[in-house]
Structure formats: structure tokens, C-alpha cells
């Protein structure tokens, strides 16, 4: 059974799952069920490797993607979970309890896009200097070079 089916069986209409033409599995969901899905993927389906967290600005919303990997015999399986959050006050639950490596990735997304991760133990700027003014998030589309 593919990952898509398993996730769709458990989370029903909370998720939209599809495979793109390059063979990547994409799961689109809403913020409120994000943590449950990640927990399920980590504990039940053994997706124990978080490659990174990508954030990008679409102009209307901010998208956050969690890139996960599962290793086993043969080819590793990839799953990417995407959530959208609003642009004015972006906030997503922190997943540091599930994936400790997210400590650094979440700080990076916060730094460059200004997304607040609720529940992160130490959410402050990581790449830019500390004295940068509030609201300076270079990867936002309205930030012009």
C-alpha cells in the first residue's frame, strides 16, 4: 500500500495527496492537522528523516513544506507535506518534539520569512544579525533587493 493510500485512509478528507510527474509524493493539508500527520508519519510509517523545512512566499500566502524521507530496503521513499498560512500573521505549530533537527530549520524559516513556530523553545534569528529591525524578512516577495 502506498503512503498516499495509508495517509488518506487515516486522515480522510483532511488531506489531499497526489504523486507528481517526477514521482514525488505531495500531501497538502491544513495547519490544525499538520502535527497529527507528522506524528503519524514518524511513529507509524517510520518517516524518521526530516530533510529540511522549506518556506516560500506565493504573494498571497506563505507555504511551508516539510520534506521527509523513509529508508528501507531499496529505494528511499519521499514525502512532502505542504501547508499554507496567511501572510500578515503567519504561524505554524512547531514540530521540534517530533523531529529534534527541526530546531535549526524552523529558526531559519522564521528568520528569512517571519513565520512564527508556536512552541519552539528558542525562536530567534539565526542567519541575520540580531540587530536587524523587526519585520525584516528578505525572502518575502515584497522585499526588493
Amino acid at each position, binding site marked *: 500500500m502506498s503512503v498516499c493510500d495509508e495517509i488518506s485512509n487515516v486522515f480522510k478528507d483532511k488531506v489531499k495527496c497526489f504523486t507528481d510527474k517526477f514521482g514525488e509524493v505531495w500531501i497538502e493539508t491544513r495547519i490544525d492537522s499538520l502535527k497529527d500527520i507528522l506524528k503519524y508519519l514518524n511513529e507509524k510509517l517510520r518517516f*524518521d528523516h526530516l530533510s529540511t523545512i522549506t518556506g516560500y512566499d506565493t504573494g498571497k500566502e506563505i507555504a511551508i*513544506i516539510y520534506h521527509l*524521507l523513509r*529508508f528501507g530496503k531499496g529505494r528511499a521513499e519521499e514525502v*512532502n507535506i505542504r501547508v499554507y498560512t496567511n501572510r500578515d500573521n503567519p504561524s505554524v505549530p512547531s514540530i521540534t518534539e517530533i523531529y*529534534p533537527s527541526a530546531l535549526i*530549520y524552523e529558526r531559519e524559516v522564521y*528568520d528569512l520569512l517571519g513565520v512564527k513556530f508556536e512552541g519552539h523553545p528558542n525562536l530567534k534569528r*539565526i542567519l541575520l544579525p540580531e540587530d536587524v529591525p523587526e519585520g525584516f524578512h528578505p525572502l518575502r516577495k515584497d522585499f526588493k533587493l
Partner: protein
Amino acid sequence: MAVKLPIGPIHPMLKEPMNFTFYVEGEVVVDAEPNIGFVHRGIEKLAEKKTWFQNLYLCEKVCGICSSAHQGCYAQGAEKIFEKEPPEKALYIRTLMWELERLHSHLLWLGVIMHEIGFDTMFMYTWKDRERVLDLAELISGRRVGYSINTIGGVRRDISHEAIKMAMDVANYITERAKFYERVVLTERTILDRTQGIGYLSKTDAIRLNTVGPTARASGVRRDVRQDIPYGVYEESPFSIVVDTGCDVLARIIVRIREMIISAEIIKWILFTMPKTGSIQVKLSPFTKPPENEAISRVEAPRGELFYYLKSNGSQYPERVKIRTPTFANIVSVIHMVKGHYIADIPPIVAGIDPCLSCMDRVIIVDVNKEEKKVLSHQELRRYSIKWYKKNRAWVREERR
């Protein structure tokens, strides 16, 4: 007495600069906190202002040591975006460059770790051997470092007969030298004293902290993008993954030395099986507009899994280029590794994950109780650690038993 010890604000690499604050009790590190970003150059934003083809050279400059891995990973992702398949010969040449880069990077790292533990003789030997690899790279690509050989839809240069001959020599030479280094590392007392049992990272922790690359493989985690998500010509190439269950710095040294032998084998295999003729590039105009797409590209860089996420919006310029470098993924595990070790062991542990060189330029020791500050340069820290080891050698060894 709790002492705070920040390390290294002046810094080397894009996202892999490390400034750690170590909390020490006496000689023992109890906690650490990273502070990075001294080399943040805004590459991800700059990439949105350059065309797809100009970004090849920008991505190469993310890291000077694993430049080909970065450029190849970007090109691989961009090929998905453009929906173009590179010709077979191009993949062979690309893989050859990736493996050459692994050779030179591991030799470089071997020198650096030996320098950190105060064994400069071997540093000189490894860097001497590394020149052979760089000469070969210069012959193939036209530059010693920063090969710029990849392009979207293939590679830019064909490989000459002279280069094939030289590559064969280099592969044989490196195999021989790697075997020699392995013997040295396993018998030399200086090395064993300083690396055995240092920087312990158990298999469960390595998996839990999402460690990548040789650091993970030295903890017994069989993960290698080359085999898990095959790219280039690795799917056909017969090679084995090196795994060691030592979990310490010594294991990381051994894994990297054996990987050099494997790399040399892959190079020889490539030279034998590479198609002699054929095109090396799908011709694309540098102003081509790709369709709207998003792609993920993963490459096993010398330091571990390299990750690129690319998104196009139908114009000449990419919408988003996300880069996750391997050292960035390994920082969390460094914090875990240094806990419970002596200050003198910090240099080999931090160098153990291969954080792109001189990561610890300066050390400031802050005594929290007395509010005193003591500034140590990296050199001084090294000297201090070597001196400390000479003094305490006997009981440290006793304790480890």
C-alpha cells in the same frame, strides 16, 4: 562553576558557519548552543534575481569545496524543471566529477582533522596527495577548484584521452595511499589517543537527530543518497556503502578513508564503462523559459545529503531556490556529541563532522561567576588541547577503560 565558552564568530561558509557557545563545568562541556550566519550572503534571494543559467554559477559558490555537488544538484533539479534529460555520457562525466570532489574533500578533511589533533606530519602528506586530484580536475574542467562543469542539460566539457589516462593513475595512486593512511590511523598512538571514544553518537541518536553523510555512517546508519535515491549513474555502478559502528571520531576517520577507496573504484568503473562517443549536452539557449514546475533534487555531497528545492513560475527567473547544506543538518548532532567531553576534545569533534574547515577562529571563555572574559584564538585552543592531552594522557586513557 559554570563557564560559558563561545567559539568562532569569524566565519567560513554560507550556512555552515559555526559559532558555538559551550557551557562548561570545570573541563567538561555540559551544553552547547550554535549561533550561525556570519557567512550568510543571501544566496537564496539573489537566486531569484538571476536567470536559471546564471544561477549555475551562483549555486556553485555556496561552497568552494563541494562546488560540483552544489552545481550538479542544482542542474539536476533544473533539468526536471525544464523537462530535459541529459545524455548518458554527460551523466558519466558528472558522476566522475562528483567522485573526484569526494576524493579531494576527504583528503582535505583528513589533513584538517590531523592538524586539529596535533599531527601535522600527516596533514602535509594528505595535502600533498590532494594536489594530484586537483591537477586532474584542472585538466578536465579548466580550474583547480570550482569546476563549473555542469550545465542544465548535461556537462560543458568533454573528457580527453589524456585526462582518462591521468584519472586512472590518480585512482590507483589514491587507493594505495588510502590503504596506507588506514594503516597509519589504526596503528599510530597519537591518533588513537586523541580520537578513540571521542564524540560518541549512538545509532539511535544519529537517526533521531537526522544526521547525514559520513557522520551518520560512522554511527552505523546505512544511509547514502547515492544508493537510496540513485542519481547520475550510481544506479548501475557497483559500489558498497561504508559503515562503521565505532560511533566516535576514529570511526569517522575510517569511514572517510574507506570511502576514498570506494570513490577510486567508482572512478575506475566510470572510465571503463563510459561511452566513448556521444553528445554531452542537450543544447538549450541561455534564455529558455521553463514551464511552471517544482522539483526536489538530492545529491550525496562529500559531507552528506545535499538538498535543493526549486520552483519555477514560467519566467526566466526561478521563483524559489531552497538550499539545505549537509553541515547545517549536522549542527544539532554536534551539540549532542560534545556533551560530556573535555574542552580539549572540542576541535576534533567539531572538525569530525567536516564543517568546511576553519570553523573555530576564535574562542572566548567567559566565566559566569566572575564575569571574566578570556579570549582564545583557535590556534591557542589547539595548542591548549595538545598540551592538556600530554599532561593528562595517562588518566584519560585509564578513565576510558
